[in-house]
């Protein structure tokens, strides 16, 4: 094959960054729920998939991608909150494993429900007209839609960061994650906090699904791979750490992209290799606090 030109290399690097942004978006909902509730939401992939279907439905019905973009996170948040309220909540205080197992079972149910409602085949989702086509980014052409996804990711992260680090509600969330009893005694209805966090996490999962739909189409199985990616990014970044998720997502994306250039067969393993290395050097992840889980 041809030699690798500097221009190709630059484009490849940028592709990796863009892919990383998508990965961050996939991981951040998982990371949020984990960091705040110490719950690993195994149904994260399922919510991602539901987001894609919800987005598709709204898009079909209203004819507007943008309405879908707003409605989708709301819809998945509502479902997520219902799940928290009626299922997960019963498990608080029963050890970290049970919510994980519950959501694992829930994922089965959700995927199958979608198969019943929408069928087993995939569905097409069109890229919104204004974002179709590729734009010149100086080093080559790049799909406009992917640039848009990066922008949305950045916006979501900014909002989330501000919310968690700078507001009182964020303070409550962070405290509630560690010692809910105390927070309760200080006058806060913790159950509402949990509800909100779970809803926020699933909202982001749904948004990610909706945003991914024009990239990869929709199918009931689309959540499966997402879960793995989200896990790797969360572990590499350090659980519950926003900056960690960002750094890890981009690291994984770039590594995968460069692997695809030099040794394509290894593209998919690359993220696991990174993870193994990180674990060896910093078991708590790049930005993780050690002892958080002990």
């Amino acid at each position, binding site marked *: 094959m041809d030699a690798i030109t500097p221009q190709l290399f630059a484009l490849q690097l940028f592709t990796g960054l863009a892919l990383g942004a998508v990965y961050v978006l996939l991981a951040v909902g998982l990371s949020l729920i984990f960091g705040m509730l110490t719950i690993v939401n195994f149904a994260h992939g399922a919510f991602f998939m539901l987001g894609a279907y919800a987005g598709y439905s709204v898009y079909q019905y209203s004819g507007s991608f943008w309405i879908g973009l707003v409605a989708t996170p709301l819809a998945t948040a509502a479902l997520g909150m219902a799940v928290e309220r009626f299922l997960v909540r019963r498990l608080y205080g029963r050890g970290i494993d049970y919510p994980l197992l519950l959501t694992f079972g829930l994922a089965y149910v959700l995927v199958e429900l979608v198969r019943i409602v929408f069928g087993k085949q995939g569905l097409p989702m069109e890229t919104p007209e204004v974002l179709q086509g590729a734009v010149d980014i100086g080093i080559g052409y790049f799909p406009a839609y992917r640039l848009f996804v990066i922008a949305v990711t950045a916006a979501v992260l900014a909002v989330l960061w501000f919310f968690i680090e700078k507001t009182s509600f964020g303070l409550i969330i962070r405290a509630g994650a560690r010692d809910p009893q105390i927070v309760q*005694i200080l006058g806060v209805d*913790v159950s509402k906090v949990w509800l909100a966090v779970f809803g926020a996490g699933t909202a982001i999962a749904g948004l990610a699904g909706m945003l991914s739909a024009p990239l990869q189409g929709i199918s009931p199985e689309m959540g499966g791979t997402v879960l793995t990616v989200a896990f790797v990014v969360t572990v590499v970044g350090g659980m519950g750490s926003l900056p960690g998720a960002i750094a890890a997502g981009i690291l994984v994306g770039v590594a995968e992209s460069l692997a695809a250039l030099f040794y394509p067969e290894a593209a998919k393993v690359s993220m696991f290799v990174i993870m193994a290395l990180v674990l060896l050097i910093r078991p708590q992840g790049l930005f993780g606090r050690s002892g958080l889980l002990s």
Partner: protein
Amino acid sequence: MLSIQNLNAWYGSSHILQGINLEVRRGEVVSLLGRNGAGKTTTIKTVMGLLRKANGSVRFKDRDLLGLPAHKRFGLGLAYVPEERRIVPGLSVLENIRLGIVASDKRAREKEVVEQIAETFPRLKERLHQTAVTMSGGEQQMLAIARALASDPDMILLDEPSEGIMPLLVQEMFELFSRLRKAGKTILLVEQNVEAALRISDRAYILDQGEVVHADSASALLRDPVIQERYCAV
């Protein structure tokens, strides 16, 4: 202000509190004494709503507490310094203090409140941005008290606040309680430092095996040789 009548409470199936009767009047400091395992902590936890399996009557400002979820009790003006301090990990000292007021009407006047606290506890002032759990045991205890005071409650329940505090500060702490009392706060104090506790209390209850076995004015108890021998020996 706080009136407990015939309170029974359970951990699982073990019956811990067996008919407690206790009263704290507005502006009083009342001590709750007794040996380990007597049920002091359990009593306080029941009042705060941390133990849901309870019956009897617990009234605060004439409201029935047992029916209220824990977070609503805070709104009535109750504050609590728990036994093992329960400083929230991962948060800084400042954030722990802020946590004390997020749900109260003081939230808007955060700066003021923090300043006031810092005045009372100079040690905390130096450390406002340290991760709270890395502070020493005594520093954490101060923080726990500071957090409870932040919301300017009407009544404070303190569970062994002097535990792990150095002698110099223990004196100061009890002085602080006296000052609080003068400022009109009501205090229910669980202490093993019996003598010091009685000195600042109006009245005291002695608990044993989940029952009140003795109740009297603090001064009488201080004079009581049996009590002296039994509880103030160290």
